[in-house]
């Protein structure tokens, strides 16, 4: 029990440290920073005090505490994936527009060059 507890605790600390480090190096956009910090801290809290999960699931009427954890975890992950899909669609649209405009500008520049030579 103590060894698993220790492993989980160390794991949570590493994850939280990783999040903080990504933020520190500006590798994570600010709009995501709060979300991931909250996730990291919650993870650490629930690992440090496993009794918290048990009493929380009892209060919510969930028989098995891990089920509560899985439910919340999966819900959260689905939300994150959906958000990322949305973000990727938006980025793709922006990239497309840039590519189209780049091609148009290239053609205009080459036409301009030809005209300058002709003059």
């Amino acid at each position, binding site marked *: 029990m103590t060894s698993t507890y220790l492993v989980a605790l160390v794991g949570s600390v590493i994850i939280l440290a990783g999040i903080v480090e990504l933020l520190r190096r500006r590798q994570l956009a600010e709009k995501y920073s709060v979300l991931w910090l909250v996730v990291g801290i919650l993870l650490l809290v629930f690992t440090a005090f496993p009794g918290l999960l048990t009493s929380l699931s009892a209060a919510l009427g969930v028989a098995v505490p891990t089920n509560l954890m899985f439910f919340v975890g999966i819900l959260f992950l689905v939300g994150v994936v959906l958000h990322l899909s949305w973000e990727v669609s938006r980025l793709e649209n922006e990239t497309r527009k840039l590519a189209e405009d780049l*091609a*148009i500008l290239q053609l205009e520049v080459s036409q*301009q060059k030809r005209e300058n030579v002709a003059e």
Partner: protein
Amino acid sequence: MSSKTPDVRALIVVPAWNEQLTVGDTVREIRAATPDLPVLVVSDGSTDRTAHVAREAGAMVLELPFNLGVGGAMRAGFRYAVRHGYTAAVQVDADGQHDPNEVPRLLEKLDEADIVIGARFSDGTDDYKVRGPRKWAMVVLSKVLSTLAKTKLTDATSGFKVTGGRALPVFAEHYPVEYLGDTVESLVIALRAGCRVAQVPSRMRPRRGGTPSHRPIKSAIYLFRAGFALVLALIRRWDVSPLVEPVPVRAPIKEGISSD
């Protein structure tokens, strides 16, 4: 064309993706058929000599840095057209399926519609045969779009069409870039923006290169995706109204065709 509708300034847009074998002949044929219309080939991230061949044949070439699909290529063409003050864009495929001699007939129809489709199946004189699921998809699409457009559209998925009038600025901004978006969804958007759609009978010729997709599994997938594209197009929100006419950027560049 120029005699009957002098107010139309048309640009021919040829989307091409790795079509170095056919694009040269297609461009030369277009220029022979309609010598007073500039030809813009949109090389859609081609990795072969498409852009070079098209330029040699006397077309202006837009080179997209990576493949965007027919929708993206056409939107680039529309944006170029709007920027340079054209009032109509004619899509002609690079594989030689579309007969450029029919372009003037399509342009003439532009005084009654914003989009003119060169349609197969409108009479019995067609050699182009479609069977199985692909045919059913086309029939259903035609029925739905005909109802929406309040006019008979027999070939909604035809790539051979003229975009002009109110439709051109709408498409320059909102042309759909997804699969089948360039045919099905674009018509829905145009109709929702209040554009009128008409069709002109047209003959499709066999392709010069490339293989038509007529295998049953591919056709079944096509059926599904076409249906999905249609449903999506109908339920999607489009911020196309109120229609704001974008002021074309007066580019300080005169149009030039390289070989002239």
